[in-house]
């Protein structure tokens, strides 16, 4: 059943797969994000309570959902790496970490910028924001642990263990923080008091969610390729590829330079 996946455990095939997928991801991200953002900002109806400030939802919620999703994806990659001993699995895990951290940062920042007009303060110890902050710490831990090892093979395994520990903890953290929040009566306005959101508000949200997912996929493919090149620097296929790319770039630069000189 998993046989069709096995070729991608080889770095060369994984690199090729990334190269094929990448343009589609970029196009998908660009289209979905522009449609979703323009629709959300200009065409979606106002919220009756929060006015136009609720439009931050169109980036806050997708980034918050996907920051958690990326962490889970990292943990799955780590598990795959551990069970089947795939090096590419660890590489894709570490390729996802920085982009997941950026998503978490976006969720935090937009949450704060949304909280200011709603709660009157940039930072409120609201359950959602607090668990996002802890998630950011978890990402930082994984990235820091990976960076601390010289041997990147070992680093991948170590960071994988930490990602798995974190993923077991995420639900516990989430519920404990939520419970702590109700105990201390922090924020009074919940952003999601009304459980059903109007469909004309929901569509741009879903489109943006898809757009963010495409974006994460696109950046992950770029970074995974980087990881592969970094580890496989001395393989012939990498060298051939690099020579081709660099010479293309240089000829492009040369053309640019000659055009500039001519004008």
């Amino acid at each position, binding site marked *: 059943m998993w046989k069709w996946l096995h070729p991608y455990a080889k770095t060369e095939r994984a690199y090729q797969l990334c190269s094929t997928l990448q343009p589609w991801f970029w196009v998908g991200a660009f289209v979905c994000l522009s449609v979703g953002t323009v629709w959300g900002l200009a065409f979606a109806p106002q919220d009756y309570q929060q006015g136009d*400030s609720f439009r*931050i939802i169109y980036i806050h919620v997708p980034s918050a959902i996907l920051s958690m999703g990326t962490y889970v994806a990292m943990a799955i990659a780590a598990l795959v790496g551990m069970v089947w001993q795939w090096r590419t699995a660890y590489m894709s895990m570490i390729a996802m970490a920085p982009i997941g951290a950026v998503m978490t940062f976006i969720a935090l920042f937009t949450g704060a910028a949304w909280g200011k007009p709603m709660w009157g303060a940039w930072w409120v110890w609201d359950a959602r924001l607090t668990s996002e902050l802890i998630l950011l710490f978890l990402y930082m831990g994984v990235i820091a642990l990976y960076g601390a090892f010289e041997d990147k093979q070992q680093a991948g395994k170590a960071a994988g263990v930490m990602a798995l520990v974190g993923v077991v903890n995420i639900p516990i953290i989430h519920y404990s923080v939520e419970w702590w929040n109700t105990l201390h009566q922090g924020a009074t306005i919940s952003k999601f008091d009304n459980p059903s959101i109007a469909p004309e508000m929901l569509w741009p949200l879903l489109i943006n969610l898809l757009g963010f997912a495409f974006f994460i996929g696109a950046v992950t493919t770029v970074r995974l390729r980087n990881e592969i090149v970094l580890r496989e620097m001395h393989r012939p296929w990498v060298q051939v590829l690099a020579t081709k790319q*660099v010479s293309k770039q240089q000829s492009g630069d040369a053309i640019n330079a000659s055009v500039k000189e001519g004008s």
Partner: protein
Amino acid sequence: MQFESFTEFLNMGGYAFYVWLSFGVTFVAMAMIAIQSFIKHRNLMKQVVVEQERKARIKKARLQQQGSM
């Protein structure tokens, strides 16, 4: 269109600062990570080529040495 005019759209019902700040920071952050990844890719590829050329030079020098000896 939910807004009467473009200035009203920019004003965002009085929440202009927060809304545009959020969207601005979001897209700048996303652009930064994307650009950083691409620059790293470019540098890595260059590094591979430089390394390769260095190795070729060493090999050549060795061969010349052997030839002269």
